[in-house]
């Protein structure tokens, strides 16, 4: 049997199918006689839950960064909340019922309270209360939280996976993710790309496939269940060829990014936190083409201080040891995590109060970041890039603030270096203004994700539009050529830091267009390098 969906990451996986159980445990109301013992059972389970959450926090910290990990700390505090604990113990005592029932009832009551609030952030906390209650109940019942029971690695099937669920998974047991829902930009898709394993979405499997042998074909976007032996053989061979290719790629580490006819291009990597630097170095990228500084902002409960930022930027600059590190200033606003942090809800956040618009409005925040960046520049090769630019006027304002910052640092005797200033080209307005903008900055970096979304007027979070979201649209290709030409005419170097940069079917096109730099996710560096090294620009254009 074959089910076709959509691939979100290439590759072949062969293994047993396992359906993800999200640990929804039915709870029975049972009469008990020894209330004190029942309360003790609850207390013990609560402590165990806190230990589990502590471990999850540590795990999440490594896998998804501090921003996403914080939720587990908050869960720990909620479990210790006196109102919560008293509610559970009261129900056990007054109704003489089992702890499972008392926890489930308390969880429902508290989550109803949050759900009724007129604040989206607080409404979302209702799910947290359910989540912690569910965890305690699972422990009381002696069960495992939803996850993978099999000893062998499996192809994991699920409706969809929440970030909190993926964090809990034992990744070494996942060969591939296959979900019914989700879009190419969902959390699961991002995780699959990070883990380098094939993943499919839109696969409407039936519940009886559990335990059967399956093949995930991430190239064709299909799931094959109970394959015939000839098909299985065919895929085994393809999988081996894939692995051979991976080995080859490893050999390309440390090789130059140069075409057969000698054209050099800079191949850099995109990162989202200080800890990503290790994978940048492991994959042999020539520098960091995009360091998303907003992760640093969302890590703390308040705007990070100049010292905190300085420490992080300096660390990355020092770890990269003289290689270029392009840090993008605060780009929050469109991301849903910002809603979570309580910014005003917007009807159309992608076009809303975000990125440089916030920075130029609240210059105190912007200045703190610029001071930290300039101070860190002394310790390495830092460049600064500004997001969401639509006009020359914005760039002039930025340069004015930069001049103030430098003057302050001079007055305080703090050392810094001259840094290259560049802008993201991710709005159609910026593309049309590249000729003028090029005179004001040192470099352009094209953010293809937003540029495609704005140019095609297609919301990239909407899975219904995935089929017409064409990142190779001729309008985008024309814009890219225009950006390079105008950039070069104005003395700028020009790069791409959006996902399109890693599309190896376009590598030759980018080289021919004249791009000077490509910045891709660390795991894509080697395959793009392979493509560059086998390209010959002197031959006839294909």
């Amino acid at each position, binding site marked *: 049997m074959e089910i076709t969906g959509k691939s979100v990451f290439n590759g072949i996986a062969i293994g047993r199918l396992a359906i993800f159980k999200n640990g929804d445990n039915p709870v029975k109301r049972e009469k008990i006689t020894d209330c004190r013992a029942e309360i003790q059972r609850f207390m013990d389970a609560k402590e165990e839950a806190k230990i589990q959450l502590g471990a999850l926090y540590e795990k999440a910290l490594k896998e998804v960064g501090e921003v996403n990990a914080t939720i587990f700390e908050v869960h720990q505090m909620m479990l210790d*909340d*006196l109102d919560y604990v008293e509610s559970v113990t009261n129900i056990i005592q007054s109704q003489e019922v089992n702890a499972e029932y008392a926890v489930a009832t308390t969880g429902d009551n508290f989550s109803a309270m949050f759900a009724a609030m007129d604040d989206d952030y607080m409404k979302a*906390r209702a799910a947290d209360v359910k989540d912690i209650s569910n965890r305690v109940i699972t422990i009381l019942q002696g069960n495992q939280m939803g996850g993978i029971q099999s000893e062998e690695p499996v192809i994991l099937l699920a409706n969809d996976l929440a970030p909190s669920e993926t964090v809990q998974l034992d990744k070494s047991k996942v060969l591939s993710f296959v979900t019914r829902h989700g879009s190419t930009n969902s959390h699961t898709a991002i995780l699959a790309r990070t883990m380098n394993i094939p993943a499919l979405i839109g696969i409407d499997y039936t519940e009886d496939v559990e335990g059967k042998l399956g093949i995930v074909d991430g190239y064709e976007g299909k799931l094959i269940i109970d394959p015939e032996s000839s098909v299985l053989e065919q895929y085994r061979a393809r999988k081996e060829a894939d692995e051979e290719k991976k080995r080859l790629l490893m050999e390309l580490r440390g090789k130059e990014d140069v075409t057969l006819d000698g054209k050099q291009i800079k191949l850099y990597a995109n990162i989202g936190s200080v800890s990503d630097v290790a994978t940048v170095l492991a994959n042999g990228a020539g520098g960091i083409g995009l360091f998303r500084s907003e992760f640093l902002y969302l890590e703390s409960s308040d705007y990070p201080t100049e010292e905190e930022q300085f420490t992080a930027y300096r660390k990355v600059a020092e770890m990269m040891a003289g290689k270029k590190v392009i840090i993008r200033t605060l780009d929050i606003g469109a991301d849903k995590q910002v809603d979570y942090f309580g910014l005003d809800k917007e009807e159309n956040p992608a076009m809303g109060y975000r990125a440089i618009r916030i920075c130029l409005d609240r210059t105190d925040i912007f200045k703190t970041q610029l001071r930290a960046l300039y101070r860190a520049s002394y310790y390495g090769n830092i460049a600064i890039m500004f997001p969401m630019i639509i006009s020359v006027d914005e760039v002039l304002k930025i340069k004015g603030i930069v001049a103030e910052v430098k003057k302050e640092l001079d007055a305080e005797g703090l050392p810094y270096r001259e840094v290259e200033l560049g802008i993201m080209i991710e709005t159609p307005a910026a593309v049309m203004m590249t000729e003028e903008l090029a005179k004001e900055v040192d470099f352009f970096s094209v953010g293809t994700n937003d540029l495609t979304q704005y140019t095609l007027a297609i919301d990239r979070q909407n899975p219904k539009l995935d089929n017409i979201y064409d990142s190779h649209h001729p309008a985008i290709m024309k814009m890219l050529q225009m950006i390079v030409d105008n950039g070069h005419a104005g003395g700028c170097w020009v790069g791409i830091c959006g996902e399109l940069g890693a599309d190896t079917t376009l590598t030759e096109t980018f080289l021919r267009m004249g791009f000077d730099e490509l910045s891709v996710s660390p795991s894509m560096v080697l395959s793009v390098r392979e493509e560059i090294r086998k390209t010959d620009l002197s031959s006839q254009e294909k």
Partner: protein
Amino acid sequence: MRELKYVITDPMGIHARPAGELVKAAAGFPCNVTIEKDGRAVDAKRIMGVMSLGVKCGMEITLKTAGEQEDAAMDALSKFLKENL
């Protein structure tokens, strides 16, 4: 009893993490600590209660400490508010 009126300046309001920190700080004192918003008071030592107030940026809260070590508690908690919220 000591009392302090304070307008929240943190753009995110009293969201989960600072609520947790505030609760931890309040729990360190033996006196009663309450936070009041629009006439509704909650025990500042309980995170669910503090979060249930749904305090956003620009809203005024009243912090009250009453009982043993009320002065020390007010000093510490008002400092926390000013520095974090």
